[in-house]
């Protein structure tokens, strides 16, 4: 009798467990489920904004703690023809566009940006996957740029449009001229043909490191493989990386458009010529290959409306956790 009851209870618990977990996956797939699960993000944003002031800085580390290798992540070599042309001339022709809800749209070369008051900071970069690296970033505070452009009162978000194509609208992953793109599964996946199937190395084995080291700009960039977009004749719509932050983070002193990593010009693998640093958030907010900063009132008109490439694929817009 007792044994029988125990068996029943054990079997019941097992069954309930299986049903619960299958149910969890189904629940997360519904609209109501997604909305419910997003409540955690809202709570995190609310509470962290109570804990942080606009000027609160992330910890800055002593130079001795800089990681010997700063792991490049996401796109490490944009396949786009325009970007490759810029990289081939060491970004001498690069212009950062600042537009949208600003009084004076700007177009700034790297020399212009380096001429503005700069900031150098040794900070920790935390990838959404879980790993961390410490690097020294030099760049121009975003506030310097935004103050020169002058924000219109409706401006609420700064959007960072990037050079790198990750996929094509409609799900096409085939690049032009036989080159191919593959869709990264999550922000930590390094997109590089040579290691795309090496799952165990994705998160930091030797192959990626070798690539990173020979990937300084000028080398590596426009040679071997064909650009993925086939130029003006290509009618497909590329989906490029983009990110957004609100003004609370945009005007933080540590929020910079970085042009140097560890005292040297940013390598292509780490986002040359310009990447965003927004130190109180995770790695996927640190947009690389930034070409344009657009000030907007709402994020709804961009991509799928969630404020970033990864946000459109389910990740939190607020990546402070």
């Amino acid at each position, binding site marked *: 009798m007792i044994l029988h009851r125990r068996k029943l209870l054990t079997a019941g618990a097992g069954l309930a467990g299986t049903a619960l977990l299958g149910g969890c996956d189904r629940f997360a797939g519904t609209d109501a489920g997604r909305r419910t699960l997003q409540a955690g*993000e809202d709570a995190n944003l609310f509470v962290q904004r109570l804990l942080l002031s606009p000027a609160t800085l992330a910890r800055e580390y002593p130079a001795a703690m800089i990681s010997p290798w700063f792991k490049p992540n996401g796109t490490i070599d944009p396949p786009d023809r325009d970007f490759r042309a810029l990289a081939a001339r060491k970004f001498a022709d690069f212009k950062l566009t600042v537009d949208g809800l600003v009084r004076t749209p700007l177009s700034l070369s790297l020399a212009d940006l380096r001429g503005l008051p700069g900031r150098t900071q040794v900070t920790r970069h935390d990838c959404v996957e879980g790993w961390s690296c410490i690097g020294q970033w030099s760049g121009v505070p975003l506030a310097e740029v935004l103050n020169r452009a002058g924000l219109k009162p409706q401006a609420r978000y700064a959007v960072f449009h990037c050079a790198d194509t990750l996929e094509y609208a409609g799900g096409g992953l085939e690049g032009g001229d036989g080159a191919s793109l593959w869709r990264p599964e999550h922000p930590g996946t390094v997109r590089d043909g040579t290691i795309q199937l090496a799952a165990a190395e994705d998160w930091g084995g030797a192959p990626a490191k070798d690539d990173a080291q020979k990937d300084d700009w000028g080398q590596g960039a426009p040679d071997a493989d064909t650009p993925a977009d086939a130029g003006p004749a290509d009618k497909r719509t590329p989906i490029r990386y983009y990110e957004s932050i609100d003004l609370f983070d945009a005007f933080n002193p540590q929020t910079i458009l970085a042009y140097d990593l560890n005292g040297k010009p940013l390598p292509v693998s780490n986002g040359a010529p310009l990447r965003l640093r927004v*130190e109180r958030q995770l790695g996927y907010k640190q947009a690389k290959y930034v070409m344009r900063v657009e000030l907007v009132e709402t994020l709804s008109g961009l991509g799928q409306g969630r404020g970033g490439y990864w946000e459109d694929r389910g990740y939190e817009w607020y*990546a402070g956790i």
Partner: protein
Amino acid sequence: MAASPALEAPETVDRQGRRWFYRHPLVIRVAHWINAAVLLVLLMSGLQIFNAHPALYWGAVSTFDTPAFAITSEPGGDGRNRGVVTIGAHRFDTTGVLGLSRAGGTEAERAFPSWATLPSDQDLATGRRWHFLFAWFLVLNGALYLLYGLFSGQLRRRLIPDGDQIRDFGGSVKEHLLLRFPEGEEAKRYNVIQKLTYLVVVLGLLPAMVLAGLAMSPGVDAAWPWLPELFGGRQSARSVHFIAAGLIVLFVVVHVLLVVVSGLANNMRGMITGWFSLGRPGTETAR
């Protein structure tokens, strides 16, 4: 089941002469079951998150080539892949469960197997959403439990060992190891090992888990720079979080085993209805 639970009369005797004791107040019962469900979701979504970078390090940053702990897959000698767990310099073949396992009929290179993660597929974004929402449930539920426990005196009464229990510590250990469980009056309180274990879990392990989790947040770290340092850096905090999860799993396994061997029905009834049988004087405890 006898009279309705009332704080002033937490004990009664039924017509068969069996003594009943109102062991768990409603708040504690509800908090217990919420906690059980929430911890399960947190564990499985946590394993999903771990799978995105299945390696642990000590210090502030990751030393990618020399992790303290890693779950990987690699080609074996026979041309087939193997799952491998690396702890420091030691390596263990864990093919089938860790590193390499089967999911939906195909072999998958993933640290923890599909059946152990939430979602079951590799999906870091959704795993994070489950984890952070249920982390709030854990914290709110835990806070309610602690506030109730402190103000009602239940925490002190239930979890702080009494003087005589501390004096007879050795005897209690012996009784516990022999799986001899007290009946009658003595069954109305937890034994000293139970009390200390629950204290460590409630006031040590679970708060450490929450703090180590918060220490991984770049936003919280900016607000409280001392927090990651408490653990020796963000990557240490991540390792502590993982180890603490393992200890909680260990606690749950032992807890469930002891619930079963010390009288499953009586224990379950106690945690569901509140009423726990102390047995009939002079006879065996009801099971």
